[in-house]
């Protein structure tokens, strides 16, 4: 199963997300801040990234924008985890290059569904 990078500063949220992902058979990498997240994404090439938007220092939107500009990481789908439900906020995640967003606190089923959809879209046939 592919591994998934969680960029999340809140330990409780991270533990829950990790538990859900590990039980679904994924391996999980964790970064508590955007900078570590960027490094892990480049070096470990995860299949997908769960990106908290509100991070200390560089926020998740800025980090996503950097990931999407970097040829090494641009192909990795990013799911924004956001506490904001407003339309403008959703628009911001889209502009930053996020492939999907999930509103926190997360719903278990929704997380699985969004991840499965994105992973299936991103499996490219071998040429």
């Amino acid at each position, binding site marked *: 199963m592919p591994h998934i990078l969680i960029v999340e500063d*809140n330990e*409780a*949220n991270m*533990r*829950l997300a990790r*538990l*859900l992902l590990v*039980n*679904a*058979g994924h391996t999980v990498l964790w970064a508590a801040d955007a900078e570590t997240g960027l490094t892990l994404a480049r070096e470990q090439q995860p299949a997908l990234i769960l990106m908290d938007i509100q991070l200390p220092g560089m926020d998740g939107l800025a980090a996503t924008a950097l990931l999407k500009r970097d040829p090494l990481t641009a192909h990795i789908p990013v799911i924004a985890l956001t506490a904001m439900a407003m339309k403008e906020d959703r628009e911001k995640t889209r502009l930053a290059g996020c492939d999907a967003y999930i509103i*926190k*606190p*997360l*719903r*278990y*089923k929704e997380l*699985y*569904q969004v991840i499965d959809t994105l992973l299936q879209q991103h499996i490219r046939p071998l040429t």
Partner: protein
Amino acid sequence: MASQPATLLIVDDEPQVRKLLETLLQHEGYQTLSASSGEEALQLVARQPPDLILLDIMMPGMDGYEVASQLKGDETTAGIPIIMLSALSEPSARVSGLETGAEEFISKPVERVELWLRVRNLLRLKERGDLASHSRELTQRQIGMSVHDLAHQSLENDLRQAVARNDFTVHYQPKVEVPSGRICALEALLRWERPEYGAVSPAVFIPILESLGLIVPVGRWVIEQVCQQIAEWQRGAIGPVEVSVNVSGHQLIEGDLIADIARTLARTGVEPHWLEVELTEGSLMENTQHTIASLQRLHAMGVKISIDDFGTGYSSLAYLRRFPIDTLKIDIAFIREVTSNPQDAAITRTIIELAHSLSLRVVAEGVETQAQLAFLKEAGCDQIQGYLFSRPLPVETLERLLLERLESP
């Protein structure tokens, strides 16, 4: 609610009704304005738009339907929620009221809790800007299904009567400890035999009791029944048994659940740890501060607290830590397909691990097959309940089962 108390306009031609409504609403902390006719009401609204209008239908001169149509037809006043009041309880009055655009309908004599619930609900919806969709939905429902509405009205009446006569019974479903297979606790479930119809599902009648404001007295009755039952078992051969009781969020908000429980435990001489209250995840999310405070008081008394239907809502860890919880009950939806749907299996495993990491017990309900049991056993679930072991049983049948178990360990 906003810091400024909401202003409610009462429109009724009868002075005693106006007085009664004023008193009830002021008691709940609302400001009130009054009008004795439709014409006066329209003038008042134009001068000082209220947050909500209680509107009598039958008035000399301009009646309630006309007032509602005018207000709902005017862009500047269309956003003010209207509750129609009528002595007529037939569905046709209700339908015409809702067709004018009114959001709610209450029949007279007005019951305090029902009034309060509807007012509070509408003010909340207005604050969130959900009013339009609420009334659209209501109108469609009421107009499209007036036969259904009639049936509903008669169901409501039967339920009111059942409450007045305490026409309910309590059944008990055993919970079984997974490793040992021993009966370790029971869940109390309310049953209602509707005259001439037979048993009605709690999924149908509980929400109606809630909307009628009757869940508080019925909930109190259940707690009394259960405590008396535990006390009786305690004195006899069966011995004390832990029983969980479903509690609606309404009981926490509207009634004094904590005092009711404390009084009943004291009177029946049941130790608090034999009683567990089960609340759904959804009801915890409402009115969180008050709910946490209430649950902390219950927990401090020694009563156990269980979260029912866990895993479908916003089941965050941070939020679990804020509540004094003893038990998580995995939502039945996940158990149903736990052996065939990998997502449901993963969620079930997650909930079990989550619970154990917080030192909570986990119960799986709706267990019907050996394969489900095998999965849950392997995943480390603590207790199960479901038809695989036993359906909810009337007291006499349950007692036979408990005694048999005692005799053949």
